[in-house]
């Protein structure tokens, strides 16, 4: 292995470890507000992973939509339903041990499966063109119908959320 390989893999492992630590904090921390802040950290880590995969546009969308909209929405919901998760409340329900067992079995199975399949080891050459114009063209030609449907769905969901949540 040459130096660039070591550096690239080290950067990936550091980013992945930080992302996973933030994810574990999101799930394990008792205070829901702190869990939401850890969730923001996870979203940043995933955006960094997108950058490493040369999907710059998706990384920016991840920061804008997940951190800018979803995380703020979750923080608002936490603040509107506050006072329920005090220091002495239990953060896990009765079936948490079963859930942990099933999930660790699932992870082991997935991990063994991932290691056994002969994946393509490396991608083609690095991308030097700007992806974003291509993506815009594709969205308005090849994927026009799903694009319009998903916009209608988003509108319906937001109007529905407003109607459900109002007094």
């Amino acid at each position, binding site marked *: 292995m040459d130096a660039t390989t070591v550096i690239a893999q080290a950067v990936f492992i550091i980013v992945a470890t930080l*992302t996973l630590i933030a*994810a574990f904090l*999101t799930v394990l921390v008792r205070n829901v507000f702190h869990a939401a802040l850890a969730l923001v950290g996870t979203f940043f880590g995933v955006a960094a992973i997108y950058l490493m995969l040369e999907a710059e546009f*998706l990384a920016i969308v991840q920061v804008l939509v997940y951190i800018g909209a979803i995380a703020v929405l979750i923080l608002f919901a936490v603040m509107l339903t506050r006072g*329920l998760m005090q220091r002495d409340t239990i953060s896990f329900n009765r079936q948490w041990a079963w859930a942990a067992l099933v999930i660790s079995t699932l992870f082991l199975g997935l991990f063994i499966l991932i290691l056994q399949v002969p994946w393509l080891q490396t*991608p083609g050459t690095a991308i030097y063109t700007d*992806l974003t114009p291509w993506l815009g063209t594709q969205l308005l030609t090849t994927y026009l119908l799903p694009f319009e449907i998903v916009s209608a769905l988003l509108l319906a969901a937001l109007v529905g*959320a407003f109607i459900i949540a109002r007094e």
Partner: protein
Amino acid sequence: MITQIPLVYYLALAAALFCVGSFGALARRNAIAVLMGIELMLNAVNINLVAFWRYGAADPVVNQAGIVFALFVITLAAAEAAVGLALIIAIYRSRDTVNIEEIDLLKW
């Protein structure tokens, strides 16, 4: 830089993130924390989609199905979060709790 990282690394990270998220969705008592677990799972799936797009597409610049799919997943996650949090707030107003063990109106 990308050419030096095997696809397996991304898949292992996505699998771990998915499992952590699904544990959160299954084991937490606070409904908002359950929603956060689901967001983690959606993020893990997105990592898989983008990784397969980058490594699997013959020409990643022309063939962008994976990245477009990831964009749609992000949009659906936004819609899901909005509706889910609205439901949680509505339930909190009427029943004064966000503990999913106490929200059992439709259970029996």
